[in-house]
């Protein structure tokens, strides 16, 4: 009798898993991927995101909940490359062979086919926290978002042939919207062509290139190395010489250093995000770039010394 009760109890424990089986359980490594995946899958999938949007993607600490979600997932969508260094230990903890990168058939690498910038010729930590494959912040270029959408739709279509057409149609709609928005964003940015900018961390080369800005320096002396007084002194001098008006930072970075540099140079600090959901205004991929470009447009148009 006791054994029967135990079996019944165990069956009850599995019931929620059976009930959820009609939807595709997708886990995305970051919120921007989750947003793009959501645009492609629509109501067909439930999407869970590992990295909270207001935290640095380099240093996410996966939790037991992330492990559990990934164990129960149907598909894992990630950014590929080596930005999400925590992805390997997470997948090791999950232990699902079909989710492992690169061979797992239920993982989708969104970076496939993207032309990467800043691929290092030699690998040395003397150059800081550089990335072996190239700069991994590729989704800040809307043209790359189109490739990501196609990657996700095509692979999902292979995994779920009955939904393939819908996924591809949704990806096409997403990409058409990107084209339409890109024309607007480029028009917005047209007056600021060649404007010199300084960034806190080198996470915006794709954005800068797409919209015709000019990167002239970083607050970090080398990628991932905290700013030093000596480096900042040199940077301030250079910014004054080149009349740099903008310092781009992110919400998870300390504010004191960029504000200090801004005060000494008359530049303006703008807090961009490349993670959907980091700010209430950045609800999806489009509103995220709307937010960033709007900030830049306003800051470059504001009277000197005024910050937003």
């Amino acid at each position: 009798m006791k054994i029967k009760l135990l079996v019944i109890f165990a069956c009850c424990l599995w019931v929620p898993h059976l009930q959820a089986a009609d939807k595709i359980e997708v886990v995305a490594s970051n919120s921007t991927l989750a947003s793009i995946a959501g645009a492609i899958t629509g109501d067909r999938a439930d999407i869970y995101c590992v990295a909270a949007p207001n935290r640095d993607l380099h240093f996410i600490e996966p939790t037991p909940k992330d492990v559990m979600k990934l164990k129960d997932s149907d598909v894992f969508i990630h950014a590929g490359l080596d930005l999400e260094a925590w992805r390997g230990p997470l997948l090791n903890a999950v232990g699902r062979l079909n989710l492992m990168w690169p061979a797992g058939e239920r993982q989708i690498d969104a970076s496939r086919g993207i032309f990467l910038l800043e691929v290092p010729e030699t690998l040395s930590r003397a150059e800081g926290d550089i990335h072996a494959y190239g700069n991994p912040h590729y989704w800040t270029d809307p043209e790359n978002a189109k490739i990501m959408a196609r990657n996700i739709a095509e692979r999902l279509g292979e995994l779920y042939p009955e939904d393939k057409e819908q996924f591809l149609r949704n990806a096409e709609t997403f990409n058409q919207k990107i084209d339409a928005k890109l024309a607007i964003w480029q028009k917005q940015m047209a007056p600021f062509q060649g404007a010199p900018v300084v960034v806190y961390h080198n996470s915006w080369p794709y954005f800068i290139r797409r919209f015709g800005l000019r990167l002239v320096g970083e607050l970090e002396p080398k990628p991932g190395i905290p700013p030093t007084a000596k480096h900042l002194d040199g940077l301030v001098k250079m910014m004054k010489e080149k009349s740099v008006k903008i310092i781009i930072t992110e919400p998870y970075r300390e504010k004191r250093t960029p504000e200090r540099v801004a005060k000494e140079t008359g530049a303006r600090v703008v807090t961009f995000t490349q993670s959907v959901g980091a700010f209430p205004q950045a609800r999806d991929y489009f509103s995220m770039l709307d937010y960033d470009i709007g900030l830049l447009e306003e800051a470059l148009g504001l009277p000197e010394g005024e910050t937003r």
Partner: protein
Amino acid sequence: MRILLIVFICFTVFSLDSLPARASEENMFQSLQQNVLDLQRTIQSLQQTVQSQDAVLRQQAIQIEGLQKKWEGVSPRPQAGTSALPAEVPKRTGGFNPDIGMAGTVQAKLTQSKEDGEGNDTIAMKELELNIGQAVDPYSRADATLAFNDDLEPQNVYIEEAYYTRWGLPLGFTGQVGKFRANIGKQNLLHGHELATGNYPLVIRNFFGEEGLAASGARLRNDIPNPWALPLEVTGEVLRGNNGPSFSGVSRRPIFNTHLKTFFESSDNTNLELGWTTMFGDENPPLRIENDDGTITTEARPEGTDRFGVKVFGADATFNWFLPEGKKIKLQNEIYFQNRTKLVHANSDPWGFYSQLDYRFSPKFSAGIRFDYLNPLDVAGGHGSTEVSPYLIFWQSEYADLKLQYSYTNHAGENEKIDNAVYITVDFLLGAHSHAIQ
């Protein structure tokens, strides 16, 4: 009068003559003005055209560059399905070599104690870890940490961890065999350089050894499904019994360990992890005596034998609070109780706990304090040991840090004494390095 008339006529004639000229000049001026405005509009229109052409050209340049690079095969980025794992990029000459990394910990310790305790009043290469890991085949991987040290003892090398992981066992279990750090609470799982402090908490040092408990054995791990979608992870281990001061020290007397873990997210920026540890082991097995003729006999110890006479129960709680600007507060607590016979150690109910508060307040610095209490294995009765350890960490980069720690210790026992110690620790990482999720 005539003269006046002539002057009037002349003035009138000249005036009438100048009117058309003035009108003509005004017309010409207006025409010119219109022309200038037209030209301005044309220039503006041309500027806009040039700007839009610039954007098109830039976009085309990016595409051309991308195509050229791809054509030339310059980009070393591997395509999914054919590439290696991230840590073993991009040197294809490395082939199938495993990820190799090194973690070094150099520690200087100044102490009031006159004992030749580990690293007292000296500087030592406390530990140099050589980490090697890689997928073995599509189903498994192997990881090893070989530790070299130049501390009190003559230089030595030992296997800190070396284990084989097999995923995808029936019912979703993950299995590990080899030598590994036992899944006890939180800090026992960490390697020395991962600690925020220069040493392990007092209770871990006393119950499981100066560097915690690592032993050969086998481990199974899985999640327990439940209707509340609550992360509930269970780990079971059978470990060789020759490690850890609390246990027999005899290999054939295994230690059985289970750890249960759960996790709650109270908000977007706070979470709480709770764990429970249960261990059973032998305290004092029969003596094995090798006779002159090579035979082995066993004799019960005069003080008696007790199978599974050691029971250890522990609880751990870790609270994380993620603050704006990348700041973070972590409060971690572990408590352990033992219920054991008094055959080897004097205390049948030793127990202890620590509570540690850590605050990462800038990219470069973090600070914290750990409070330890211990009712040790060998001291029965009286008050326990207490230790207070404030510390400051300078994070030079992700790969190098400097730790400064002061510890005030009030030891328990007959030789009750107070000790003040200062630890200065330098950690550095080289090559591929990653830590298992705890």
